[in-house]
């Protein structure tokens, strides 16, 4: 296998050197940017100038990209597979811009990998094929040779190799195995932590989150413990953050009517109350799939919502599907569905897509259309300039 690395900076600063050494079937690894001859020999990685990456035959390559500002290149290179190494926003970058384009990069990737547990959980709620590049196990879980050097693998390094291999194997084969293994490792870790730190609500909440993702009804027990501790410590804003989560667990493992009741308890704003009424209405008219999908969305588990809605054909279901697609940055799918359903599309989303595909003029036109007559286009055009500046800074760092 051949790999092309698109990093956030220089080789010296690249944080995933060991993961590169552990890549399965490592035929060739190219790093976009400068490297000394010695660095290339020691790491068995070849340096390629940013301008030269288009000369590589991308039908043989998997891209490993760790900055969202490579997104335009990722889209135009059309490599066989894209692995997004998602990171928290560095201090020097604009957070809003970074998070938006990281979201788009994550949605575009065949595999999303991250060292941040927060991003791991967020992505796991949004999509399939997410790997956490961290863990709490000291022991070795596998071995691999790279040349004559023998490496011991941690649990997540074993799963990283499985996940990459899984991309190249029969695409119809499910990735469920390694995903489930990792969720269970995390769940086991937090369950053991609950025994060690019985008065920490966060630990119980995280145990509940992983058990929920596994579809284990025990999630309820851990969430209840977490909620009780939050109330005990007088964190009274936990109705939204904690109590609402009961409704998602209930949808997955229990009773739909209870789930709607649990959501209704947490509905305070006029919008939320309206949502609760809508759920009640669907429940009474027997539209259970809509209730389930919407409760998942309201709990930010769009991946589960999309799974349900994709198989439904009513326009109501499709409208909900568009909302979910927009939230998880599947914007091309959202536009396609919008066009089919309404005959028109969201200008901001359309403009962003044009921009990422290098169609600058079309992007500006879409932004102007979306903004209307009253100078609302300036923030959009300003974001465009910010993005272009961020990309320039990235290229300077890489070639430094």
């Amino acid at each position: 296998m051949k790999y092309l690395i698109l990093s956030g900076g220089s080789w010296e600063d690249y944080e995933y050197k060991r993961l590169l050494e552990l890549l399965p079937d490592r035929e060739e690894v190219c790093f976009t940017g400068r490297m000394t001859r010695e660095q290339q020999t020691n790491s068995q990685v070849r340096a390629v100038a940013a301008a030269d990456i288009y000369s590589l035959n991308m039908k043989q390559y998997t891209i490993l990209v760790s900055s969202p500002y490579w997104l335009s290149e990722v889209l135009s290179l059309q490599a066989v597979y894209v692995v997004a190494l998602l990171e928290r926003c560095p201090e020097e970058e604009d957070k809003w811009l970074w998070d938006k384009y990281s979201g788009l990069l994550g949605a575009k990737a065949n595999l999303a990998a991250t060292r941040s547990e927060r991003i791991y959980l967020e992505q796991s709620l949004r999509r399939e094929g997410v790997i956490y590049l961290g863990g709490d196990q000291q022991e070795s879980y596998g071995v691999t040779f790279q040349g004559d050097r023998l490496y011991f693998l941690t649990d997540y390094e074993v799963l990283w190799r499985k996940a990459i291999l899984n991309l190249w194997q029969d695409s119809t084969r499910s990735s469920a195995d390694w995903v489930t293994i990792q969720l269970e490792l995390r769940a086991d870790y937090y369950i053991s932590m609950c025994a060690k730190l019985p008065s920490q609500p966060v630990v119980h909440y995280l145990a509940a989150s992983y058990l929920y993702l596994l579809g284990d009804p025990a999630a309820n027990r851990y969430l209840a413990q977490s909620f009780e501790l939050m109330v005990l410590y007088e964190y009274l804003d936990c109705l939204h953050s904690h109590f609402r989560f009961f409704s998602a667990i209930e949808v997955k493992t229990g009773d739909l009517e209870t789930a709607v009741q649990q959501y209704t308890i947490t509905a305070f704003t006029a919008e939320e109350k309206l949502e609760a009424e809508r759920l009640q209405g669907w429940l009474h008219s027997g539209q259970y799939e809509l209730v389930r999908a919407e409760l998942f969305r309201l709990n930010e588990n769009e991946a589960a919502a999309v799974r349900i809605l994709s198989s439904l054909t009513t326009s109501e279901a499709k409208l909900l599907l568009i909302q979910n697609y927009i939230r998880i940055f599947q914007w091309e799918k959202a536009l396609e569905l919008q066009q089919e359903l309404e005959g028109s599309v969201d200008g901001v989303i359309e403009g962003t897509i044009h921009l990422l595909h290098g169609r600058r003029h079309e992007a500006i036109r879409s932004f102007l259309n979306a903004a209307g007559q009253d100078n609302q286009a300036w923030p959009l055009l300003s974001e465009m300039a910010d993005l272009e500046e961020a990309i320039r800074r990235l290229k300077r760092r890489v070639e430094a």
Partner: protein
Amino acid sequence: MSHESLNLERLAGRYGFLERAGLLPLPSHDGISIVVELSRMECATVCLPLLLLHSGADVRIIAVSMTPDFPMEVLAGQFSPEEPVIFLPYEKEEYMPNLALAHIETSFAVLLEDSIMVSPGWLCELMWTPFDDASVKVVAPRSSTERGEGKKRLHFGTHHELAEHVSYSLGRYQGEWREVEVLTGSCLLFTKELIHRIGGFNASLQARYLMIADWCLRARQIGAKLALSEAVYVHAIQSLDRYPRMKGESRQTDGWQTYYKKWALESGLENEGYLVPPTESLNFPQPVIPLGRISLASPLVTAIVYCDELKEQWIAAQQQSYKHIRWIWIRDTLVDAAPEFPVSEHDVVITVRGEDAWLRALKNASALYESEIILYLSTSILYEKRYIERVVKAITQGSADLIVSLSTEMEEAGVHLLAEGDWSVTLPLERVAYKGGIVPGMISNRKSTSRQLLLHPKASLVIGYIGDLSDSKEAHP
């Protein structure tokens, strides 16, 4: 510094040099056998060559396949015929390490899993321990697979980092070991004498570490000490196969329950401390687990023989086809005054004086071995050669708790009605067999003759019966 201590230091220096250079032979005149459990090909291909490399010239490796689908031939193909490795393919219903250990010829043996990575000097250092203290019969290195005090969880990114650590550890702690209460890990060194005395590993415990712990406790029962090396660390490659979690969970629980029951531990949460039973539990004798090709499907039978007068003719006639039997003889010297008792030295003979003691011994003898089937035999009947074999088959393949072999007279008397719920019936004890772990009922004397015994079966038991299995003629017609 005195002349003597200078000499000692020099000698230690010279010894250290020889050992580091790999020039020292193992402290055993006949070498050592290493039984390797093969279950993970990806580990075996890396760890087995390292085992050969770092164990010296005097080793014989017996690699046994633990699963039917292990690609043994592929692995064997990676070793030349000159290398001292033999491969034993998987056999259904055999616990392969027991099979391999039955054939070892060397005074010492090691049992280890294929996921264990050893380093230079490991074997010699472990082997010296029984020479330091002759009562040490079992030695283990530190590893992440030990539970309790032997557990050492270390992270290494590369083999180079591991090699540096073990070299430091061996130099710093050479010759240091301590006695421990139990061992559980993936690497164990022991003497051949010990394995022949206490037998093999009890596969019914399901989880490997429970089998090891159980075996170590049985070793302690005969006075063997267990030691943990401070100097040797072996690196274990753990498996993610236990995930998804539901896989094998119930089997694990079954193993725990058996272990708890066997060693009289309070059942509760899985806890390392709970592996060690109270000292008094170690006083109860435990059955020997046979080595070699004795099928796991052959349950252990305790045969309790009672007699009003011992007959050599009866003993000679009792050549049963079933072999997995522990014989217990209950003898009352008031009735049988013969000074010599012509039974095999492996059998247990309980000699009492007087009827009360005789009856008490008879009731309690069943607890002596923790066997799966218990049956009573009387010297007043000559049993056919396949009697015990057929009883075992009836109990293991049927659902009855208790089996009665019916004589023609009993059938005529309508004892078979008991299958329909007539619980008032009593059974002649010499025709009864029952599952281990249950209380069969009450034993009493038949009124007319004092040494003919009856069983009043408990109402809750499921009773089955089989046809007449006596050798047609009774010893005392």
